[in-house]
């Protein structure tokens, strides 16, 4: 039987203005989490009723810890950013993660903003010989964990919308250029929906399989309440709702109805 976990926070670090990294000791999560999965954390009581789903950024199996990186957006993540020690109450690991296939020798990850973080664990877990990370941020201050991405992938390129760091471009423009030079076996993406839609279209145009990590407001986090609907090409008429928490968050780009 699965359990709601009560695990120890070992470290809390402010990475930038509103982005925090929490390290949690959990033998269970460290042993069982796959890249792309998330944890559903209790952030308060009645005042922050629902758990908050946060994706796993990286796992340290040696030390039985894992990291989550999150941006403070509202009351739940605000509370979470104030938890610097003690226990966290969570359900984890949840969801369907990225597909890792030994046949994939050359992989691309394309991340945007806070969507870049789950791609770190993916890069660290993949056995591919060639790994490229294309990471897009709004501005220089939002660029975090660059050193860890550089340690995880052979090629790391960063873009910013305002040109204050790396190349001034959208990360999707960079993807188009790189795909003219080489053809990876798979593209993984996580970030704003508009970015992922573009990444999916580019990958499909080049005939490259693509996995996307979708986001939606969640309720239970385990597939019972059916609120985190994502329109997919399932069912008889090729249109139905899958659920981000259980069927996802990772989907093949060709499964998703982007309209």
């Amino acid at each position: 039987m699965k359990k709601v976990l009560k695990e120890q926070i070992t470290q809390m670090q402010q990475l930038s203005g509103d982005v925090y990294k929490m390290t949690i000791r959990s033998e269970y999560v460290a042993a069982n989490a796959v890249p792309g999965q998330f944890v559903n954390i209790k952030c308060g009581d009645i005042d922050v009723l629902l758990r908050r789903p946060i994706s796993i950024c990286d796992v340290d199996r040696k030390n039985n810890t894992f990291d989550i990186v999150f941006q403070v957006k509202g009351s739940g993540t605000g509370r979470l950013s104030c938890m610097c020690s003690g226990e966290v109450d969570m359900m984890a690991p949840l969801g369907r993660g990225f597909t890792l296939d030994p046949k994939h020798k050359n992989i691309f990850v394309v991340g945007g903003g806070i969507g870049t973080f789950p791609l770190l664990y993916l890069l660290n877990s993949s056995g591919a010989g060639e790994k490229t990370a294309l990471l897009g941020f709004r501005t220089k201050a939002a660029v975090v964990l660059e050193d860890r991405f550089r340690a995880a992938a052979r090629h790391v390129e960063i873009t910013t919308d305002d040109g204050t760091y790396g190349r001034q471009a959208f990360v999707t423009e960079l993807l188009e250029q790189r795909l003219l030079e080489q053809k990876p076996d798979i593209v993984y993406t996580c970030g704003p929906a508009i970015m992922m839609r573009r990444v999916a279209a580019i990958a499909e145009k080049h005939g490259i399989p693509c996995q996307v990590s979708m986001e939606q407001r969640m309720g239970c986090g385990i597939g019972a309440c059916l609120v985190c609907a994502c329109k997919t090409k399932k069912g008889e008429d090729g249109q139905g709702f899958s659920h981000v928490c259980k069927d996802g968050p990772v989907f093949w780009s060709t499964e998703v109805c982007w309209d």
Partner: protein
Amino acid sequence: MSNNIDLSVNIAGITFNNPVIMASGTYGFGREYGEYVDLNALGGISVKGLTLKERAGNPPPRIAETPGGILNSVGLQNPGVEAFKEHDLPFLKKYNTRIIANISGNTIEEYCKMAEILGDSEVAALELNVSCPNVKAGGMAFGTDPRLIEEITSEVKKYCRQPLIVKLSPNVGDIKIMARAAEAAGADGISLINTLLGMAIDIHRRRPILANNFGGLSGPAVKPVAVRMVYEAANAVKIPVIGMGGISNSDDAIEFLLAGATAVMVGTANFVNPTVPVEILQGLKDYMENYGLNSLKELTGALELN
């Protein structure tokens, strides 16, 4: 001492091992929570609202968190009653818990047809959903007019082979009238409250958060309203009442029992804490032991007004 405590309850001739039932729409068909809780420990499960044919449900976002509660507009996404019978009921049947089929329709005929289809199944009771705020036709439209409650209840009753529980909407002026209408038409029990119609607005986008604009409010925020309505309904009818609305712990459950409920349903609290039904049961036992109670009959309706 605790060995003598009897937590079983009888609703319309059906014995439930205990009074803690999972509320429709929050527990799916039991599979997901079955990974966290022994479903045998539950008094019952009211399954995700069923319709005659499969329904895709409403577009997302389907949920908005509000102070002490959530607004949802799932829109009765479900595989349809036949698929439920074939694929989901066999799983649920394996457990020693009572299964309640919650049914919704666009027309009275659809409700009757579903009652007929479920007649030969192992569901213990039917819960007539005349109170869903998230669908255009049917749903709440039936549950806010006492004449329609009477009509639909008496019609569906003709096709029912299991006890019929009518789930009432709180979006009415006088709940007593609705409760009496259900009873007069032959309901074997009533359950309440369904969600309160609500709205939440994203002030930056100047649009409602829910794609469906409106949704149903549940969670601790609705509890005082629910307790009052359960009290009023229980005092208006002789049939058993199943109380729900924001129950998150055993104290909450006991409030509903004291107000007149024979059993309770737990919904939103499961999202926060999957083991909450087990904790509620333990708390209920402790309470009964503390007060020297042996049977829940001593609790139901034991409220004394000031």
